Structure formats: C-alpha cells, structure tokens
C-alpha cells in the first residue's frame, strides 16, 4: 500500500534531516566499492551513461533518483547481478565485474542485500529463511544455528514470527526479515533496494531506524537506493543523485542539497517546498 504522501513527508521532514548526523560512526576514507565510468544498455535503451561513484567503508550512502533513473541497475552491478557493457566495478580494491561466476560468488559473501519486496523464499518459514545462508556457508551445528537465527530475529523484533511463512507477514515485517537474512553472515556491505517504498510513515520510520541500527551495531557499509528524500536525509552520511544514467551530485547531504545542478535543485525543491 502506498504511503499517504503529505503525512509521510511532514513527519519525516521534522526529524529526518537532523537525524542524518545520527549515523554515529565517522566513515573511514577507505573505498569499499568503486564504480568507474559504468555504462549499461538494454537493447537501445542506454540506462547508465558513465557512472562514477566511490563508497567508503562504514558509510551509509543513499543513491537518490526518480523512477527509471537507473538506480536498481546500478545496484545490481555492485553485487554482480548484471555485467557492465563497459567500465569497472571494484570491491575492496579488486576488480569484480570481470571475474568468472565462481570467483564472484566468493566476493558476494561480503554482501547482504535487502530487496524491495524482501524476496524471501516463500516455501520456507521465517526461521528457515534466516537460517538459509548459515546452512549454506557455515559449519554451525543446529544449536548454534538456532542461536544465531534467534539473535538476528531479536534484532529486528520478530522472534515470535519464526514459524510463520512470508505470506503471513506485512510488507514492513518482510523487509525486516529480509534484513535479518541479509545480516545472518555478518556481511561487510549491505545493499538496500528501495527499503521504504510503499510503506506507511510509521513503518518507514521503523525501517530507517533498522538501517541506522544495522550500521551502529555491526559497523556495516550501507548502500541504499531510494527516491524517498526524507529517509535519505535521515540515514545518509553520503548522498548521490542519479538522473538519466549519470550521477549529478555526490557528497555529504548538506553539500548535495546545496548543489546548483538544475535537476538536483528541482528534485529537492519539490520535496522541501512541500514539506
């Protein structure tokens, strides 16, 4: 269900921007993801037209952009779901985009990803969903696995849903389980695909808090793609604005907000004027 826009905006605008500094730890300057001159087309549709972006360790980077701007495509390149037509994706200093599939799988263990619709395995219970990466990639025994799963479920406040199936949960709950699954292996980097899209203001606030908590408790590097400006200013310590396949502004939130790029000015003006 789509959120009621005016209510959502007014509630978030009051607390959101000041909370941006709530991302407590100062990120180090070491880059963990580097995107260099990335191009990607689907048929005649050129989606990414030379994207350059650096994401530093421990930062929370929000990539803002309208529908069809190429945000999801950019994120899929970061985790190797797509291969670029040209350009480079570098993870932890090593080229990632040109690795064979087997080697890419090893690099992917550094990542967790929270999908827009959570992408939980619908034939498994919530417990099994969160336990799945542990079963695949660790040699934990059953007791240890249970301990880790319930620890993650506690962190997202959904221990009591362990025996439910994904279709028994609300959209917000599914996203929280998606985060629990993404965090199961304690990844270094967590990617969030439109985490607040379609959520009501209270659930949006919960999800924002979840992102902040994940960073505070695990020190993960977070990358969020979104068109939710309120949430972006609440959680980000680094913003990038993507428009028509190119990064139009990039830097700390206050710097990006002051950008003189016509699209960026219009993008923020519409939202800030309304709030």
């Amino acid at each position, binding site marked *: 269900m789509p959120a009621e826009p005016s209510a959502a905006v007014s509630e978030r605008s009051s607390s959101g921007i000041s909370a941006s500094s709530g991302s407590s730890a100062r990120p180090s300057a070491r880059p963990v993801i580097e995107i260099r001159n990335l191009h990607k087309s689907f048929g005649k549709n050129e989606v990414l037209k030379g994207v350059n972006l650096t994401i530093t360790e421990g930062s929370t980077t929000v990539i803002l952009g309208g529908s069809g701007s190429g945000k999801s495509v950019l994120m899929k390149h970061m985790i*190797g779901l797509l291969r670029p037509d040209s350009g480079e994706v570098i993870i932890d200093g090593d080229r990632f985009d040109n690795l064979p599939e087997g080697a890419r799988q090893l690099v*992917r263990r550094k990542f967790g990803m929270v999908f827009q*619709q959570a992408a939980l395995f619908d034939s498994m219970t919530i417990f099994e969903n969160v336990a799945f990466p542990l079963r695949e990639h660790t040699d934990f025994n059953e007791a240890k696995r249970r301990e880790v799963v319930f620890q993650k479920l506690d962190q997202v406040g959904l221990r009591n849903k362990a025996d439910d199936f994904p279709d028994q949960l609300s959209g917000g709950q599914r996203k929280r389980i998606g985060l629990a699954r993404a965090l199961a292996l304690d990844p270094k980097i967590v990617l969030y695909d439109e985490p607040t899209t379609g959520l009501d203001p209270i659930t949006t606030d919960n999800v924002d808090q979840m992102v902040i908590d994940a960073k505070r408790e695990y020190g993960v590097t977070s990358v969020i793609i979104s068109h939710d400006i309120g949430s972006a200013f609440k959680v980000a310590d680094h913003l990038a604005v993507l428009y028509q396949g190119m990064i139009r502004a990039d830097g700390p939130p206050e710097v990006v907000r002051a950008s003189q790029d016509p699209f960026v000015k219009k993008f923020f003006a519409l939202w800030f004027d309304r709030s």
Partner: protein
Amino acid sequence: MTDSPTEAPPEQHSDLDQIVEEAFESGVAGVGTGIIGLIEDVGGMVELALQSAMALVRPPYRIGNFLEQIDFVGVGSIFVVGITGLFTGMVFGVQSYNAFSLFNAQSLVGSTVALALSRELAPVFAGLMVTARVGSSMATELGSMRVSEQIDALVTLAIDPIQYLVVPRLVAAILMMPFLTILFDGLGILGAYFVAVVTEGLTPGLFLSRIHLWVDPEDVISGLIKSAVFGLIIALVACYKGFNTTGGSKGVGRATNQAVVTGSVAVLVIDYFLSLALMGYVSKSS
C-alpha cells in the same frame, strides 16, 4: 465495354496489393522473428544444459533438493502415469482385438500391444503426461521465483541458482522417466490383458505366449533410453522457460504455457529422430 467499370478496379487493385504486401511483409517479419526466437531458445537451453552439467560435478552436492525432486517427479507422477498407461493399454487392446479378429489372429494382441508400448507409446505418453504435470509446475515455480526476485536473492547469498534449482530437477527427471515408462508398460499390458482375456475370452496363454517371441529386450531398452532423453528435454525446457521469465504474473503464465507446449512438441519431434537412431541399434542387436 465502357470505360467507367474498368477505371475503378486499378485503385482497388492498388489497395489490395498494398494490403497483401503489408500482410506478406508482416508475415515474413513474424516468421523471421519466430525463427530467431527459436534459435535463441535452443541456444539458451544448450547453454543451460552445459552449465548444469558443470554444476552437477562441482560440490556442494545437493542431495536433499535432489530427493525432493525425485519425490515430486517420480513418486508424484505414479498415479497420473499409471492411470494413463492402464487405459491406453485397454483401448489399444479393444481396438487391436477387434482388428485381429477379422482375420482370426487374436493371439497377436498381446505381442502387438507390448511391442507398441515398449517402443513408442509408453515413453511418449508418459513424457506428455510428465510435461503436463511436472514441466508446468517447474516453469511456474521457477518463474514465480524469478519475478519475485528469489532467484536474485539466491545469487546475492552466493549460491549458484543453476546448481541449487536446475540440476536437481534435470537429474530427477532423467532418472525417474524410465521408471515411469516401465510402470506405463506394465499397466498398459495389464490393461490389454484385462480386455483381451477377461472381457473377450482370449486364453491367457495365447495372450502371453507371443510377447516373449516378438518383444526383445532391446525394444524395452530403446524405450527407456527415449524416456530418459524426454526427461532431460522436459525438465530443461521447463527450467529454461521458468528461469527466463519476465513480466510479472502474466509472464509466469506465459512461461508455463510455453513450457508445456514446447515440451510436448519437443517430445514428439525428438521421438521421431530417436526412433530412427534407435532402430539401427535394435536391428543390430537383433
């Protein structure tokens, strides 16, 4: 003759020509697109088969997933394949008994039914039933996983979706199809026996005695080889269609439809070429 009637037709001809020309062009374009699509599909399936073969020999070996598919493809198909086999044998028994009785050769019913079932009917009919039951289900399940990003989720969790999802389905279908074909053979012969012996009064000895004279082990083996190939084709088509689903729930429906249609047609087309190839094997062995 006046001029007026002869002046109008050229314009009509011109319009008609244009319509015919456009229809021809769009028809040619449609055929061309269809051929390109077919080549792409065949190429994609071959690629998926090769990737699956490589994933099959690489650990981890997903025994649990494999057993789950064995249960679904094999055990789950016993009823539908058994019923089809039984009634195919019965109807074949009725028809052949009546035909052979025209020249007093009813004793050939058993051997005719057994030969036809073991060489052709059992692998093909079992293949078609498995396409309908298993192929559709595989395409729907994988298609739903694709559009709901569950396959992408597997990839982001550093799991090879081909190894996790496709390989167990392919192997289970290859291994289970011969068993289902044997079941079809057995129940088909039983059905024909029931018709010829119980309802028509042929003696059991006459029905059974010619079977071992006419049906060689190679006939049965060639049917089982066919059925294993059909198992591969059915699962490969279904997995390929499901894996490449786009376009939400409508796309899932389209993938399911294509898996069943393509799988069924492929079984029949490949059956012809396999029959030619295996005839050489059967005649050499004989």
